[in-house]
């Protein structure tokens, strides 16, 4: 049986204490909420923190509120299932709810959290392997080695951003509340990420994502389409998140974000800029979708071939646009 390495589990009484514990223990520590991402990685000895700082029990991280305008704030330790079952949220932000429902399997959604999925580690099929396999293969940049197994001449790690909720959160213009040694800061979700598979989160030592703020729908529609081999379980092979504001068939605003084609969610703002002020017909969708496929650069470190994944970006972007265009616009409460 695969077993966890030894560690001590700390139970802070507050977010501030959690932050302090993480700052104290530094690189030896890791924050843990649901643990669905961290614990398998620990069993495979990809990471071996000796101190785990548990935050799932903190009430401050499990609240959920809707403002009068329809903005929603979700505590980072709320489970993905709780998001799915949240009828009000599904009404205001269908794209986000959709994405949460497409993460992994039912049991993992019952444990996996809102914050955990936003922060989920990048993946690579040279990295997400057992210690024995990686010994046979040789270490990589993400496991302290000298070279990337996927692209040996590359100076950087190409592990893939594999969050389903990050692309849609970016597309919706969501913000993240981060607690750290210097207090709380609020940042656009987009700026949580860096294009480096080995250090994909722009969080400082001791910082914890505490809340996700989804803005009021304000006439925006949204959709997330996930590419994967099977109907459950699988991580995204590509994801397309679309936020769209249309008035009488004419685009007033549009954001398109791709997931799982780089080490961070990729927003294609230049590509969709031209849509604004234009009618959203099939031709326009086709053009944007083709453009997205051209820009997407998936690599050969996930399931199925990267050639097919790149080609399919066009399909999922088109599907996401069609879905968003026909989705309901949330009424202001």
């Amino acid at each position: 049986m695969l077993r966890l390495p030894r560690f001590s589990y700390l139970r802070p009484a507050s977010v501030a204490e959690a932050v302090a514990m993480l700052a104290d223990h530094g690189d030896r520590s890791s924050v843990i909420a649901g643990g669905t991402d961290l614990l398998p990685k620990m069993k495979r000895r990809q990471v071996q923190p000796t101190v785990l700082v548990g935050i799932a029990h903190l009430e401050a991280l499990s609240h959920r509120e809707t403002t009068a305008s329809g903005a929603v704030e979700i505590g980072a330790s709320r489970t993905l299932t709780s998001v799915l079952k949240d009828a009000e949220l599904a009404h205001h932000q269908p794209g986000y709810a959709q994405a949460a429902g497409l993460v992994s399997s039912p049991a993992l959604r019952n444990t996996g959290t809102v914050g955990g999925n936003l922060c989920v580690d990048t993946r690579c099929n040279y990295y997400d392997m057992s210690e024995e396999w990686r010994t046979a293969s040789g270490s990589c940049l993400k496991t302290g080695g000298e070279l990337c197994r996927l692209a040996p001449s590359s100076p950087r790690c190409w592990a893939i951003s594999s969050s389903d909720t990050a692309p849609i959160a970016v597309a919706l213009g969501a913000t993240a509340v981060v607690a750290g040694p210097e207090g709380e800061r609020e940042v656009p979700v987009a700026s949580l990420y860096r294009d480096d598979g080995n250090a994909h989160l722009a969080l400082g030592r001791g910082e914890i994502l505490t809340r996700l703020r989804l803005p009021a729908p304000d006439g925006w529609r949204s959709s997330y389409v996930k590419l994967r081999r099977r109907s459950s379980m699988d991580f995204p092979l590509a994801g397309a998140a679309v936020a769209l504001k249309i008035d009488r068939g004419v685009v007033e605003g549009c954001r398109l974000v791709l997931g799982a084609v780089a080490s961070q969610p990729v927003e294609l703002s230049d590509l969709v800029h031209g849509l604004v002020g234009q009618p959203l017909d099939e031709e326009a969708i086709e053009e944007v979708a083709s453009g997205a496929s051209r820009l997407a650069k998936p690599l050969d470190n996930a399931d199925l071939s990267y050639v097919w994944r790149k080609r399919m970006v066009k399909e999922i972007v088109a599907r996401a646009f069609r879905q968003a265009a026909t989705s309901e616009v949330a009424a202001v409460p």
Partner: protein
Amino acid sequence: MSTSREWVGRRLGTVPGGGEDGDGAFQVVGKAMPRVDAVSKVTGATVYADDLSFPGTLHCVLLRSPLPHARIRCIDVQEAAGLPDVVAVLTGAAMPTRFGVSPSSEEEQALAADKVRYVGEPVAAVAARDEATAREACKMIQVDYELLEPVTSIDQALEVPMDEPIHAASKDGNVHRLASLEFGDVDEGFAASDHVREDVFFYEGSNHLAMEEHSATAIFSDGQLTVWSSTQSPHSVHRALSSVLGLPMRRVRVVATPHGGGFGGKVDPCSHEIVVAKLAMITGRPVKCTLTREEVFYNHRGRHPVLMWVRTGVTQDGRIRAMHFRTALDGGAHASLGAATTYYTGALQPATYDLPAYRFEGCRVFTNKAPCGPKRGHGTPQPRFALELHLDKLAEDLGMDPVELRRRNYVRPNSRTVNGLRITSCAIEKVTDEVLAASGFSRRERRDGHGQGFAVSAYLCGAGTPMYLNRMPHSEVSLKVDRGGVTVFCGATDIGQGSDTVLATLVAEELGLERGDVRLVTGDTGLTPVDLGSYSSRVTFMAGNAAIEAARKMRATLVAAAAEHSGSRPAEMTVAGGKIGPLSFEQAVAAAEERYGTLGSVGSYAPPPSISASKYRGSAVGPSPAFSYSAAVVDLDADRVSGEVRVNKVWIAHDIGRALNPVLVRGQVEGGVYMGLGEALMEAQAYRNGLLHHPSVLEYKTPLSSDMPEIEQLLVEQPDPEGPYGAKEVGQGPLLPVVPAVVSAIHDALGVWVDEVPVTPEKILRALDAHAKGSDPRTGPRSFPEIPYPPCEKVALPDAASATL
């Protein structure tokens, strides 16, 4: 299949029973009832191998090779042995005797001593107080390796000369086995054909992915070794342990624990089974080893990747005149049952289609990958896939309906094939009729992106020859009856297919009892007479017939005693409903004990010699006491833009002979369909840079509940003259036609061929792209390698007498 059954409540602990359906002539045979161990399974009470614990158990972890091909210069275990709580460290030097599942394959060592031949090959073992310590100690073992060039493909394996062969004994590069057989005059057949077609196909290897990871525990005490293991063949493990450990068979007992899935992956004796036994002998303590999922992928013994070339000559009216079939199997690093697998890739083509002339050339090579072995369908899904698609293409060439082309060539009941196989009961026509009628295949809706595919298949009801040459029974049963009850002893191993239920059903039927009245002791080489194991769909047919023989003898004894006791004639006695004539079963048993003393009866089964009419190299593979036939239609949507496939429904008709218990039969049929869909669309034991690409449940893709279509099963019950109550196999046959039917349906939907499984969306798009560019609208292998097959052994056709049976 939906159910309209009303809810029936039952109480915990009561014997499941009170089934329905079935043939009125029988009391329990043919009735839909829960398996006899159902309560234990649904309450978590069943004790599987890893659930066992004995006081003082040590935990064993195997150190595995990180290299695909290397010589072992030396192994330093000193540091590991010195770690606190480590009790013993073992290397291959302690167990030099080589073993294998069959005598022709005895080249494996429990722990590699001279060289390692694949990543994951066990090289050392640690027994420690707990698993974590054993694992830590493994990391401290220093192995000095000398790197050797790895061989990773069939082509590379065929290269001569080579730096260093994987096995010193192999000739012609890394060739493990060559087969060259000719039945009838193939050249003449091609000359007489109006049309000849050649195709090349590839079928990727796959793992069984049984949910239970292999586990074994050994105890050595008082000069006796006992090993509990999740094995499909305790008899094979028994033989291997005796041989490697130098213990007489009588000092070794192997107990097959309740089993969390086999599918062929637990037929071979495994390293960990031998290692725990050796460590138990060294330490005097119980030693347990449970593999991790990744280790199961290394242990493998799964489906062989097979490249195939087939050439067939037909007349204008669709009659096959000659077929030439070539296969090249990527065997991985060890022999396993691979010699048999090689012959199986050629043996059953004539058991489905009446081939007047047939040439088969097979080749298995060694490569530096995890060893392949038997997986559900053992060596026959690959040629089935190739043959069925090849016939579809021939039909297209001839402008003939693909079903009609097949029908014109179907084997007939009670016939003898060109390679000497005896065909008795054969419902191939009927399964075709049934599946066509239910699916509406001939009237299917024709639109782009939607398609249906049809295929048929044949499979064995047990290998006609044992894994090692002998003339003893293949299955033996003894029956103990006394005032304490009825106990069946049989070496057969229930791997989830329900063989215990079959034995209980047959004995209950013969003795007029309920199934719950029959106690079962199975799969225990210390207590039960020999059965060769759960493989080749042999258990119902062979152990079933042995059980019937034993039960009928017992029944005669009880009837005689009851008749004498009650002053009636034996012929007047009915045996049913817990009564023997006027006496209750218990009274009859008491009368018999008074009259005869200790009551016991035995039965055994060996297939009749007539199942094979020809003797040639490889003739041990193929003959079977009966063949089952299956036909499938797959309905699917295939997306021209994305290449994605969605299977809507599968109709499967199966020639079961008689369904001894429709609940169990249904489970085997649907499970086979599922596994066939998995292999058609997803499953692949694939490698990258000599390393397994997908050694996890997440990345080794198999269909999930939400990926599965509805399945409609159609059971054809035409009792076999020699099967137990007419029953035939169901564990493997229904998988076979599904794989080609999927690919055929994709062709029906999109007009392109994907001549290689698994079919991924990308392969479909490649074929569509080729089509759009005006080239050959297919994806698949382009050529078949040059292989140094020896001259064909020309096998005389069965003589006229045996041909007519």
